[in-house]
């Protein structure tokens, strides 16, 4: 009987600790709710829209094809490019999924194959569309039912290059945010922060001094992952390695500083870990890593646009899978840089405040 009394005492003690640990309680109740909401409302496997670009000298032809597309292809969002080169640029930037060149003979349809799931949808839609062309809406058009369909960038629609390149972003997010989130919180938890404060350490010194080693770790991680991807899955190493290194560096720094911000807000390592997890969950689900970004509803895409991983995935996949150059990914680098600047300012202010309010 005494044993059960002791077990009961332990249970009661544990329950009191759990109830008073609001962060853990919040995570245990909040994360499942967040997951249900995200999977239920945000995650879709079928794309809602299919961005199509038409290249045609004649405005009439372009308008007619656009009309057919809107009738035959669900979710087709049609834009027009002035030249094949412009259309190719849109494909490389990931801004369109399908291009239709009306002025070549036969008309040429090109599908971006870098994302095999989206490419499969696009090819199926094109198939329906060309079948529809066999019975044209009016008999006077000059668009022949025979079309040449090409799949660019990943013609075999292999899954590995797409997933492995995206994995780089996910791994960097997870490790960089987590490692830096623990770093400052660890100093606080172990009492070594007091020693640093006695050494009159400044926020700038703390941020740079603590994060630089993790940055080097991130560089090593990225290099190892890309090398393994190249050797094991034949993922091509891009020509623009400097651009790749720049993008990876900016992304790693952004995540490190974000983790440091979490670290300054947490009193110990556990809440810092929980904050990391809360950030990582939407990052992995709403960034387009696992599920097509264009399949998500507008609100989820808006949230996704705020996440650095979303932009990094577009950059890395652009560089690795589509051979994108700096001008192609500049539009994605800018929001990532803005996020980095904002988070750095917030981290510096939070660090200063934490040092000033110590030991609270």
């Amino acid at each position, binding site marked *: 009987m005494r044993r059960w009394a002791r077990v009961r005492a332990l249970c009661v003690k544990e329950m009191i600790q759990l109830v008073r640990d609001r962060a853990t309680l919040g995570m245990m109740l909040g994360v499942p709710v967040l997951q249900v909401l995200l999977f239920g409302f945000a995650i879709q496997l079928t794309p809602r829209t299919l961005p199509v670009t038409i290249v045609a000298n004649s405005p009439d032809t372009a308008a007619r094809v656009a009309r057919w597309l809107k009738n035959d292809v669900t979710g087709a969002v049609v834009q027009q490019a002035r030249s094949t080169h412009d259309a190719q640029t849109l494909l490389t930037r990931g801004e369109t999924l399908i291009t239709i060149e009306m002025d070549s003979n036969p008309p040429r349809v090109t599908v971006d194959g870098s994302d095999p799931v989206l490419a499969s949808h696009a090819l199926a839609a094109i198939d329906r569309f060309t079948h529809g062309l066999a019975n044209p809406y009016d008999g006077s058009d000059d668009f022949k039912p025979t079309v040449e369909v090409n799949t660019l960038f990943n013609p075999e629609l292999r899954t590995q290059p797409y997933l492995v390149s995206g994995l780089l972003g996910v791994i960097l997010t997870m490790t960089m945010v987590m490692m830096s989130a623990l770093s400052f919180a660890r100093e606080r938890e172990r*009492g070594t922060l*007091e*020693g640093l*404060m*006695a*050494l009159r350490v400044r926020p700038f010194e703390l941020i740079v001094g603590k994060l630089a080693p993790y940055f080097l770790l991130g560089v090593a991680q990225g290099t190892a992952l890309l090398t393994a991807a190249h050797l094991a899955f034949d993922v091509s190493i891009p020509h623009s390695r400097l651009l790749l290194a720049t993008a990876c560096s900016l992304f790693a720094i952004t995540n490190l500083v974000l983790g440091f911000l979490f670290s300054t807000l947490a009193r110990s390592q556990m809440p810092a870990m929980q904050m990391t997890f809360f950030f990582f969950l939407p990052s992995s689900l709403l960034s387009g890593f696992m599920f097509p970004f264009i399949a998500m509803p507008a609100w989820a895409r808006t949230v996704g646009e705020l996440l650095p991983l979303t932009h990094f995935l577009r950059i890395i996949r652009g560089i690795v899978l589509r051979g994108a150059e700096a001008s192609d990914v500049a539009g994605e680098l800018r929001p990532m840089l803005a996020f980095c600047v904002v988070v750095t300012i917030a981290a510096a202010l939070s660090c200063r405040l934490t040092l000033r309010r110590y030991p609270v």
Partner: protein
Amino acid sequence: MSTEALEGPSLVLTNIGKRIGTRVVLSNISMSIQRGRIHGLMGPNGSGKTTLLRILASILGSDTGRIERHHGPQERIGYVPQRFCLYDELTVRENLRFQASMRGVGAAAVAEAERRFELGVLSMRRAATLSGGQRQRLLIAAAFMHRPTLILCDEPTTALDPAARGGLWALLRRESRTGTTVVLTTHEEADARECDDITRLQDGRIAASQAAAAAPARFTS
């Protein structure tokens, strides 16, 4: 150092007040700490000793009042906290090197600290593997390695055996004779007897302040 240089106040505190959260930790603390003397801050737990020491170390800012500092540059403060604040994963030498780099003193200071505090045989051992007394010695070595002019110790004798305690007091005496000001907190009557001056705190206020020689036998009771 001349006799004149050893005299006069090192620190003058005027109306120092500090609130942490909603709790008033220090209120109206005014006192003068003389250069080259060992000044003990005494009082029960929660009386504000550690907070006052942290304010003197510039780790905390005070909410009210001001401190006049005559002990030299801020960098010349040596601080020994109550809790071990060095790195368990680093060896003794690596910890001392880190301290030396942060304080801008050279490698010679590390060797000197190892010699002076008898840490040479422990230099390659990780701090996590040291005994309580050895860790305290490492903390003190780190605080003394840059030749501070103001030494602040938060209950420095707690983890020390009688021999080490005697050694620490001998060291503090030696340092104070060269003009270094020492401020320490303690619960121990034996420590109080070693101090030149004592300030007793109670509920964040000064309850008594006098030279140790004039203090009653059971000053801390």
